[in-house]
């Protein structure tokens, strides 16, 4: 891989008066033990938009995404420096209730990871733990979230069956439904379609596009067509830095940085 000067960057500024910012990071550094995986990333994420994080594998996309809802807390020896601003609160600060925060910032993982419970229980499990007991409310929640995840028609007659019997694509959409059942503000997705076949992939993409009206979505993908199809903004990661951040059409059609151009035109990655 060619070396690019990391000073050579373009990070588009979003005017807070015109764009409502749902989440942003300021000079975020992530360390695994002593090795630094993210070298100071500052990015804004506009509300009700889809932002794609692209870049070669190992460039730090997952590391960055996982620090946004502090999933890296659970890996021994990781440290995250810098600010993560959410509703004027630095959620990377001390004294933040991480569990409460994660109810606002949900996550969907690369490999579908439904619980080995029924479809119904997968969705209602966390809401129930949060005190929703009314059966009617729960039923409704299951129906609306499954509809939003474009899964309702396929599973409405088998809600009490095990989620593990679903296909990979269906499982992933169930995981999306499960995440939005917590009514989060922000949905983080780490290559949600990479383990799926093309048809399931396009269903998941359609699902995300339809969710955009109600959720701020940040999605990691190394599939550039996918980023181009669904995202409004794109950030290009390279060796732990963001070298370019702009509206998606600019990143793909008129990249301002050489490294970005080489990457999106398939010269490395």
């Amino acid at each position, binding site marked *: 891989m060619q070396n690019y000067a990391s000073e050579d960057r373009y990070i588009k500024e979003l005017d807070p008066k015109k764009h409502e910012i749902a989440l942003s990071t300021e000079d975020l550094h992530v360390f695994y033990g002593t090795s630094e995986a993210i070298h100071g990333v500052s990015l804004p994420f506009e509300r009700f938009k889809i932002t794609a994080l692209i870049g070669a594998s190992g460039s730090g996309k997952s590391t960055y995404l996982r620090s946004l*809802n502090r*999933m890296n807390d*659970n890996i*021994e020896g990781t440290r995250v420096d810098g600010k993560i601003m959410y509703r004027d609160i630095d959620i990377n600060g001390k004294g933040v209730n991480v*569990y*409460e*925060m*994660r*109810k606002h910032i*949900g*996550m969907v*993982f690369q*490999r579908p*990871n*439904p*619980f*080995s*419970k*029924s479809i119904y229980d997968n969705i209602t*499990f*966390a809401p129930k*733990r*949060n005190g929703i007991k009314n059966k009617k409310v729960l039923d409704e929640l299951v129906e609306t979230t499954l509809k939003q995840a474009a899964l309702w028609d396929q599973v409405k007659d088998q809600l009490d*069956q*095990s989620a*593990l*019997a679903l296909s990979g694509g269906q499982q992933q959409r169930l*995981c999306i439904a*499960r*995440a939005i059942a*917590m009514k989060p503000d922000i949905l983080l997705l780490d290559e949600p379609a990479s383990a799926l076949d093309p048809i399931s992939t396009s269903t998941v993409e359609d699902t995300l596009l339809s969710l955009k009206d109600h959720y701020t979505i940040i999605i990691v993908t190394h599939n550039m067509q996918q980023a181009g199809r669904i995202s409004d903004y794109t950030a290009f990661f390279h060796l732990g830095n963001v070298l370019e951040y702009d509206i998606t059409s600019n990143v793909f059609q008129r990249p301002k940085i050489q490294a970005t151009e080489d990457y999106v035109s398939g010269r490395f990655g």
Partner: protein
Amino acid sequence: MDSKKWDKIATGVLYFIAGVMILILAFLLIFILWNGLPHVSWHFLTSPAKSFQSGGGIGIQLFNSFYLLILSMLISIPISIGAGIYLSEYAKKNWLTNLVRTSIDILSSLPSIVVGLFGFLVFSISAGLGFSILSGALALTVFNLPLLTRNVEESLRSISGSQREAGLALGLSKWETVLKIIIPEALPGIITGMILGAGRVFGEAAALIYTAGQSAPPLDFTNWNPFYIASPLNPLRPAETLAVHIWKINSEGIMPDASQVSAGASAVLIIAVLIFNFGARYVGNHIYRKMTGTK
């Protein structure tokens, strides 16, 4: 020779070894059951043993075995679950955790007679429990706990980390995730291990000879007050178990029908252990199917 041929030879050898093992097992089972079953009757299973005359049964020993088993499982199941959860979910990777794990492994490989002598010194003598059910149950706990703990730990560990992440990402606390997601998923493995452990305990003799003792005083099955000396539930009475009984008859039995009693008792013991083993498989599979909805 090509690799295909080698493959065939290796498979053949493996089949042969497996066949030999099955034959040995089958021979043992048939031998024990053939010799023992003719002596097993309802009377044999329910009446007390006799020291000098023939016609004694194994009723009290059988009861003692089950009572001891239940007591020791009551002690070891909660401890092993707690320790297993700690080791798998909470223990940091450091020298102390490694030391604990190594100790558990060493403990689990101690010969049971050593555990028995340890129990004798600590529970029977130092703690003053004498030859008693309680002393025996504690010795069995020492004998069984390491394996149970390891089993719980391994069962929890075999659940993918992505399940833990799924729970945490929904805003559940770590404890909630472990309790409500990880443990239920690991349950088939945990329960299978517990039942196998129960079978192991049921057939154990060496650890009990000097702890639960070698005598089976008559029991009064009409008085279940645990503080009454002849009560079946009294945990401080000596209690010879079935396995110990077999050992004792064969080393110093002087009743005229010693060999028949021994054969009958062995058959009963083997059947009980078989039930534990098949039960473990059945229950484990059943729970797994029930939880995952697979057929």
